């Protein structure tokens, strides 16, 4: 079982070493387009005058994730951003896209709304995998679900790009506004997809 958290709850958490040194704060969450696995965090410096850092934090280097801080062994765990994004084989700049405010479309071509947050499932075991399991969307008017944010589950074989985020049309049947019950919505949705294939 995994714990569900919103990406916005992770952003701006302080990164602290075992030695108690306060080295940075979380800026962006970086995940893989294929599979949705969380790969790394980009970082910003601490203090009003500090901007984004040129180093990032690989997910594998996180040894503890608390309510207020992310724990790493030491500052050596941070790696240059170029290494994080070049870890496979793509270009550094053209291969990245912030998905907040991107439009969510079903594979039938219906707009469900725009992404306002991302739901991450974090494995309960230390060092476990973390995956993007859903989006929080500001629903499209055509959906007729009011203006309150809704949560939409994603298939476990997520495929995404920055401009439009495609989801199976069946995902619209599992929209919920409650994070506590979202886990069961994800399971039901994925079971239906598994049964259909």
């Amino acid at each position: 079982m995994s714990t569900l958290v919103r990406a916005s709850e992770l952003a701006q958490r302080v990164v602290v070493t075992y030695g108690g040194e306060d080295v940075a704060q979380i800026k962006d969450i970086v995940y893989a387009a294929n599979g949705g696995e969380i790969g790394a965090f980009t970082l910003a410096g601490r203090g009003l005058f500090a901007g984004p850092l040129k180093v990032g934090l690989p997910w594998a280097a996180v040894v503890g994730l608390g309510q207020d801080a992310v724990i790493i062994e030491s500052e050596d765990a941070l790696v240059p951003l170029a290494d994080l994004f070049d870890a496979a084989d793509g270009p550094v700049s053209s291969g990245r896209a912030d998905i907040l405010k991107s439009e969510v479309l079903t594979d039938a071509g219906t707009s469900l709304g725009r992404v306002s947050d991302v739901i991450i499932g974090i494995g309960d075991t230390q060092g476990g995998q973390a995956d993007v399991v859903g989006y929080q969307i500001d629903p499209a008017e055509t959906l007729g679900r009011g203006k309150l944010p809704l949560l939409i589950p994603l298939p476990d074989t997520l495929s995404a790009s920055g401009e439009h985020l495609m989801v199976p049309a069946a995902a619209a049947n599992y929209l919920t506004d409650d994070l506590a019950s979202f886990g069961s919505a994800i399971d039901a949705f994925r079971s239906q997809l598994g049964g259909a294939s």
Partner: protein
Amino acid sequence: MQWWVWLIIVIVIILVVLGAFIAVQARRRSGGVIINDRKRGKK
């Protein structure tokens, strides 16, 4: 103009510049969710 008018103008300019700096810093530090789409451009 009176000296205090210049003083007020200078103070207003300083406040505007400071506000703009803080706004830019807040934007630079604000977070997002990034797809690492390593295969884009190869399709």
